């Protein structure tokens, strides 16, 4: 009965590799997000999709590409991983007409 689920929870990979993180929500929300939390715990939005349409695209390297096959899923693909990409990535969802954002448990990405 998990509301926002991300896979994998941990991801260790070498520099230069390409990896994907998957996110699914079963709350019936129409808006999904990706946030990045760095080593100092600072949380910053990366992307937001509403009904499969990209509505927020912060200043993120174009090596990061979100994909939303339907409004319950928002995946994050990262090309040519760099050491600085190491962080915890959180998926979240909300209903556009309300305000609360529900977060997943995060994916800890470590690039070595």
């Amino acid at each position: 009965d998990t509301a926002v689920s991300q896979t994998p929870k941990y991801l260790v990979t070498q520099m230069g590799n390409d990896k994907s993180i998957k996110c699914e929500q079963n709350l019936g929300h129409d808006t999904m997000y990706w946030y990045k939390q760095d080593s100092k715990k600072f949380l910053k939005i990366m992307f937001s999709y509403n009904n499969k349409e990209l509505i927020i695209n912060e200043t993120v390297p174009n090596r990061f590409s979100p994909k939303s096959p339907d409004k319950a899923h928002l995946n994050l693909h990262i090309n040519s991983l760099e050491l600085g990409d190491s962080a915890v990535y959180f998926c979240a969802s909300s209903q556009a007409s309300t305000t609360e954002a529900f977060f997943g448990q995060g994916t800890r990405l470590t690039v070595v």
Partner: protein
Amino acid sequence: QQQVKQSPQSLIVQKGGISIINCAYENTAFDYFPWYQQFPGKGPALLIAIRPDVSEKKEGRFTISFNKSAKQFSLHIMDSQPGDSATYFCAARKGGGNKLTFGTGTQLKVEL
């Protein structure tokens, strides 16, 4: 440019004491101010939120005080318990938008 400034960075409180975390913002277009609680290894979870048309909101031991003229808001945790030990984030959202801008977080430790 940090749009939402949060202090202190860390806080140690004795059990039963009052924990106070402060935030200040600059953008007067913000119209929704939530506080999120994050435990280690978990995603942030909404704790309590306020809109600028009220000066205070209380839910159980948690109270938000809001000063619109000073553009400041704070979280008060009464009768702090060891189970409250977590990282707390204030956030702000512009009217009509979905993007949450987070503060830098406060690591709270409640000691016995």
